[in-house]
């Protein structure tokens, strides 16, 4: 396929507006798979998903089927899920535990580090060019795999910045998520939600730090919580969790305005200063006590004072570090995206605390939640609306030109469209890089 030249790609991104083609042009989507998902560090999973030797989970990077496994020596590998013989996808299940992988077609077997273990009737290969030790006939390893505090990332290309350089100071949001565990460790228990929407993957990323939408989009769930509380609870009674979790979205514009948005040179971003006063319910108090036992009062206070919501690691993963949630973006087509949503258990936190994490998942982040359907309606309608030939431009002008630039981070007031503008600068960087 003929790819557009760098100049043509540059013409799609202006400092304060972007061309609608980036959401609707299938050729650009193909190029994104090659140049963004084919090059960037992509989150593939969490170490706790492969706790024991032989454990594996499968996922995709762009369209590449991959498997993350833990080998007998304890090391984690990310392998192409492709047989070295005639190409069958070796691992068929989503997750499991094996002594070795066996291809269903002609029975070649692979160790959990991807090396070829054996082929049936090997004498057929005697005197041929086939070499059982040649890694090309194994399940090949991805060129780069690295992890930060349990979060495993991989890249489809050998060249590029290290994981540390890629994350930069945005890693502090991962720290925030992990530090909130009294043992300094997270764990995925059970599966994830797999949610599909009919919109381009970038539309979701734009939404994550878009504070002008909650009041409008989420009015129905905000009202549901408020109305329920007013009908059932005495005035001034503490909000039950589902009401607390939905009410936030109804805060007035001047609340959002006062937040700080931070956008990172690599496309990452987060919003800070969002949380209402800390919870005081018995479960949360037990949790604080567990934290203080582990870290002491002062350090606990320091950890819990970090106040960030929706940190995006461009291009494919977003965490809500205070709510133990992670959303993994999997682009399926130019107008179709899958989002896998994980809830993490804070190791060492009281069991009841994790139940509260799942209340958040249930109320806000599940395909059948009362919050997300309205977001997805908006994403889908953006995709539908952009079919119109009206104007080719999508406006990202809000507070443009008023960003406060720093070395690594650029900051803005909470209702600025800085994070989106910043994402498209990163997009441009990936899409026009020589490769």
């Amino acid at each position: 396929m003929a790819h557009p030249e760098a100049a043509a790609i540059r013409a799609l991104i202006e400092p304060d507006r972007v061309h609608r083609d980036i959401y609707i042009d299938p050729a650009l989507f193909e190029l994104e798979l090659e140049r963004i998902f084919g090059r960037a560090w992509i989150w593939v999973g969490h170490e706790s998903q492969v706790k024991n030797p032989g454990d594996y989970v499968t996922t995709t990077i762009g369209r590449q089927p991959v498997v993350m496994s833990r080998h007998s020596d304890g090391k984690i590998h990310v392998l192409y899920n492709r047989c070295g013989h005639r190409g069958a996808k070796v691992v068929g299940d989503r997750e499991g535990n094996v002594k070795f992988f066996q291809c269903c077609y002609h029975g070649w077997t692979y160790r959990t580090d991807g090396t070829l273990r054996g082929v049936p009737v090997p004498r057929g290969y005697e005197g041929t060019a086939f070499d059982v030790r040649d890694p090309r006939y194994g399940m090949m390893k991805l060129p780069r795999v690295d992890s930060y505090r349990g979060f495993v990332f991989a890249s489809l290309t050998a060249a590029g910045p290290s994981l540390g350089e890629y994350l930069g100071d945005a890693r502090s949001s991962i720290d925030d998520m992990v530090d909130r565990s009294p043992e300094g460790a997270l764990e995925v228990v059970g599966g994830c939600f797999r949610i599909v929407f009919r919109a381009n993957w970038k539309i979701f990323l734009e939404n994550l730090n878009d504070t002008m939408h909650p009041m409008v989009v989420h009015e129905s769930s905000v009202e549901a919580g408020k109305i329920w509380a007013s009908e059932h609870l005495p005035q001034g009674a503490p909000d039950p969790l589902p009401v607390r979790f939905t009410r936030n979205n109804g805060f007035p514009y001047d609340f959002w305005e006062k937040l700080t948005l931070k956008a990172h040179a690599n496309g990452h971003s987060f919003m800070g200063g969002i949380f209402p006063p800390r919870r005081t319910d018995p479960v949360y108090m037990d949790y604080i006590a567990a934290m203080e036992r582990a870290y002491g009062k002062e350090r606990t206070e320091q950890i819990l004072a970090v106040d960030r919501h929706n940190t995006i690691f461009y291009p494919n993963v977003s965490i809500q570090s205070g709510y133990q949630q992670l959303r993994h973006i999997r682009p399926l087509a130019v107008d179709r995206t899958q989002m896998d949503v994980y809830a993490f258990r804070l190791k060492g936190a009281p069991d009841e605390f994790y139940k509260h994490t799942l209340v958040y998942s249930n109320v806000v982040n599940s395909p059948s939640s009362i919050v997300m359907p309205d977001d997805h309606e908006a994403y889908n309608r953006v995709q539908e609306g952009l079919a119109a030939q009206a104007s080719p431009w999508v406006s990202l002008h809000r507070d443009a030109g008023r960003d406060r630039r720093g070395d690594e981070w650029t900051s803005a007031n909470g209702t600025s469209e800085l994070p989106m503008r910043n994402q498209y600068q990163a997009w441009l960087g990936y899409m026009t890089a020589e490769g």
Partner: protein
Amino acid sequence: MAPALREAVDLGAIEQFLYREAMLLDEKRWPEWLALYSEDCFYWVPSVVGQKDPVNTISLYAEDRMRLEMRVIRITHPHAYSQDFPTRMSHVVANVMLDPENGKGFDGGLAPKADLVVRSSVHILEFRKEEQRLFGGAVRHWLRRAGGDFSIVLKRIDLVNCDAPMEVVQLFL
């Protein structure tokens, strides 16, 4: 369940009760539908096959009465944009029987205070905007006798596609 009690149960009445629930869902008669559920009810749609527990692992629905009521307020709110074009549903309930296992191993450890457990199969046709979707699976109702009628203490719906990638689900199954 003791054989005598089993005989005393009028399967016809149970069937009519389940059909009535299906009708109320299809016709979106939410207050009447909610009235079928007890104050201590739980509505559970697992997200994995054979799920053991609705509060320590993620579920598609894990709703107490409060959350059911919040959902009803939301989907009937004039600004529920994802219901601008309202979802329509048709439930077909079949294979109604007293659960031979009496719900054993399926109650998620909730130990519902029920008099009987009914098993059925459901096929749900759902339509919104351009497309229809089909859901289906095994349903278990934990029922309590309430006057001459029943009330639902726990409803568990094991969808055959519970762990599939899916677009949002807004109404009740």
